[in-house]
């Protein structure tokens, strides 16, 4: 028998019909490249917004609340105002950056708190099952069934609109997504041999959960928490836009847009520029989260494959 007609060594004697071109066109390769692009684009977009916000106090900008009534609604790039001025002559860039500090603080604190609550509740529900699973699952289902924004507005109306209340409200609003993911991951983990081994060694349930199971699920969960950051920032902006944000004169993104919409046809920058900043941050964080999630999966698989190869 011959193997004529089957190309065996088209590319430098490689014993495969798969060419370098095929490899470059492969779905896995394209996904990897797209992931790299997403990672870079996400990082750049996020950095473009987050870095100036973090450095707002150090930048040579006027105070966010300094008014100059004679210089109202100056267009961008006028008299040293990069983003122009608002309806009270305040520097818009400074207000956007200081507003970003409020929005990001609320967002970061909210996702940290919601992440902690979600991981604790989800892990307990997934590992212990039984009544605890039933309670956690029913509570999170009930909360997911409620209209989110309306619930937030109700709580803010009842308890006032301070930064603390808004942070707590968004944190409580977001824990179900983290809890649901954690629960499903823990359900898979608890059936694995290392958990059985730990049990055989006499470790208590809570110890196994805290020391062995949670560290194995915390990475994918933390990526979801990162994605929730964009949602938290949007929620804070939505609350401020609807008048339920921190009291004036605090600049918040939602309020800057809400105030600016009255001047939509005469001063476009009052609403467009803050809107672009919000969009840039949300897109950036989402791209970054996506890239880390996909990249994380690939890395784990590669590590697993290497480990399998090593033992074979």
């Amino acid at each position, binding site marked *: 028998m011959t193997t004529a007609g089957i190309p065996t060594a088209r590319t430098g004697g490689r014993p495969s019909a798969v060419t370098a071109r095929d490899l470059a066109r492969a779905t896995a390769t394209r996904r990897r490249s797209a992931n790299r692009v997403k990672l870079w684009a996400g990082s750049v977009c996020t950095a473009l917004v987050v870095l100036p916000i973090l450095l707002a106090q150090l930048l040579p900008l006027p105070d966010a609340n300094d*008014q100059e*009534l004679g210089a109202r609604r100056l267009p961008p790039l006028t008299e040293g105002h990069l983003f122009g001025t608002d309806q*009270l*002559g305040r520097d818009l860039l400074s207000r956007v950056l200081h507003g970003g500090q409020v929005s990001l603080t609320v967002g970061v604190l909210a996702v940290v708190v919601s992440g902690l609550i979600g991981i604790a509740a989800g892990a307990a529900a997934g590992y212990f099952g039984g009544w605890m699973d039933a309670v956690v699952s029913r509570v999170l289902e009930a909360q997911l069934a409620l209209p989110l924004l309306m619930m937030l507005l109700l709580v803010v109306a009842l308890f006032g609109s301070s930064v603390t209340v808004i942070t707590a409200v968004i944190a409580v609003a977001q824990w179900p997504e983290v809890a649901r993911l954690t629960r499903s991951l823990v359900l898979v983990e608890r059936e694995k041999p290392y958990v059985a081994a730990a049990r055989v060694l006499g470790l208590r349930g809570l110890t196994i959960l805290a020391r062995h199971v949670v560290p194995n699920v915390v990475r994918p969960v933390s990526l979801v928490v990162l994605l929730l950051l964009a949602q938290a920032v949007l929620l804070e902006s939505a609350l401020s836009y609807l008048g339920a944000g921190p*009291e*004036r*004169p605090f600049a918040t993104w939602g309020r800057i847009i809400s*105030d600016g919409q*009255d001047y*939509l046809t005469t001063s476009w920058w009052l609403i467009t520029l803050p809107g672009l900043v919000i969009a840039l941050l949300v897109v950036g964080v989402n791209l970054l989260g996506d890239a880390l999630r996909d990249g994380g999966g690939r890395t784990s698989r590669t590590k697993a494959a290497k480990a399998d190869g090593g033992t074979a």
Partner: protein
Amino acid sequence: MTSDAALDPYTPGISRRGLLRWGALGGGSLALGGPLAACAGPTGLPGPGTLTLGLTRSLVSLDNKLNQFDAAVTVQRAVRQALTTLGPGLKPRLVLADRFEMTEPTAWTVRLRKGVRYADGSPVTVEDVDTALRMYGKVNGSFLLGLFPELPEVEKTADARTFRLRTERPVPILDRLMANIHITPADANKPEELQSGLGSGPYRVARANSGAGEYTLARNPRYWGPKPPLETVRVRYVPEESSRVVALRSGELDVVDTLSPDAAEQLTGLPGVSLERGDGVRVCQLFYNFRKPKNHPLSDPRVRQALAYAIDGEALLRDVLADSASPLRGVVPTNLDGAVETGSFTHDPARARALLRRHGADNLRLTFMWESGEFAGDASVMEAVADMLGDVGVRVTLKQFQPGGDILKWRQGRGGDWDVIGNGFPSPTGLALTCLQGMYAGTAEKERTREAFMGYVFPKIADGIEEASVEVDDAERQRKLAAVQKAIWDTWPALWGFVPKTLLARRGRVRDVGLLPTNSYDLTAVHLEG
């Protein structure tokens, strides 16, 4: 004979799946095409005989007992009428009455117009007037009640249409005051806000959604007067000014009122849109809380005066309000009948700082509150004022209430502590006296039920207003009013104040909107072209 291509199963052709796919696509296009095309085009355009009004505040009901704001009055009076109304020049005109005259110092003789009836055909009776007065009298915290020195009682006479309005002391402006008492059938009247819309006006309520503040008024076929020119009037609540501006530009709304100067700037010069401006009679003030403890700095009029020096009123009027308001030079708008100039607000921050230090009120911390939409540009004014006070060392916390919130409770001192309120006070009679009566005639008795305006209780001033209100001689009344206004000014009741001009925008097809200084107009006079 067949060709090779026809026999080749791999030759592209119309497969059954392809046919089904294209069929589904065509069906879907036909089904969704219409609605999508409708979405792409303009929607909600009013018909040729329909006038659509866009209100800034929600019209919770068509009853004016508690729901009192300028544009609401326009709509409410189209459905329910009073014995009199205020026409051009703010002069009283007869509506349901054809006679309304002072026949004794404490009695006015009134005769109902012959043939006046409600939309259901039942006649307007003296009993209805009597019940309406009693019902208005039972409303707690009523703005209207504060305008009356005392509510008159109805005395029937032998004639079924004639009656007397009797008061204990003379009320020489009763004809103007009664323009605010809307008449409803006696058996349907209640002290609460009436949700039904039965009245004797030129329009009846065809559809109402009070929660959303939306009403459709249709021409009343049984109207006792001349047939109104409009077939239908639609009332919509559009709180966002930008949405109202866009809706007016697109033709979705015909008339929008109480515009901010910035919105007016956007609409100026647009084809098909006209602006109407005029002097207003509503006074907007940053009014102090007079319920503070005696040892509080704000209880000292010298501190109140010192704070007023920190406010640059000229800059606020010129830059923030874009010349859409006039400076307040008295305690009520000076274009009101009987109002006098008592002084003006001066900007002198150095003096403010020095006086505050001298009176031990430096490092003050104040809380300002207001309701969104209380006056055009409210948030900008409050933020600018807070900044100006910051320059003299006073730290201000701003508390903004959304419409429908519980600011009424706070105003009455039941919600929490505050120092200054951004407040607008209308003058529905065009008289300084009623404005003074509503704001400055607080007594200890009224304060017990928290009905004294922001806790303003100065017995001498209340007595002075009461004396003026019962004075039948015009010249003497004006003299007494002038004296009492000067006395009020010396108490420094407000940090700053202004008088907004009335500003309304309308589509070109809307004619004869006779905008009054009260920022309302008569809907029966409005015409539509085309």
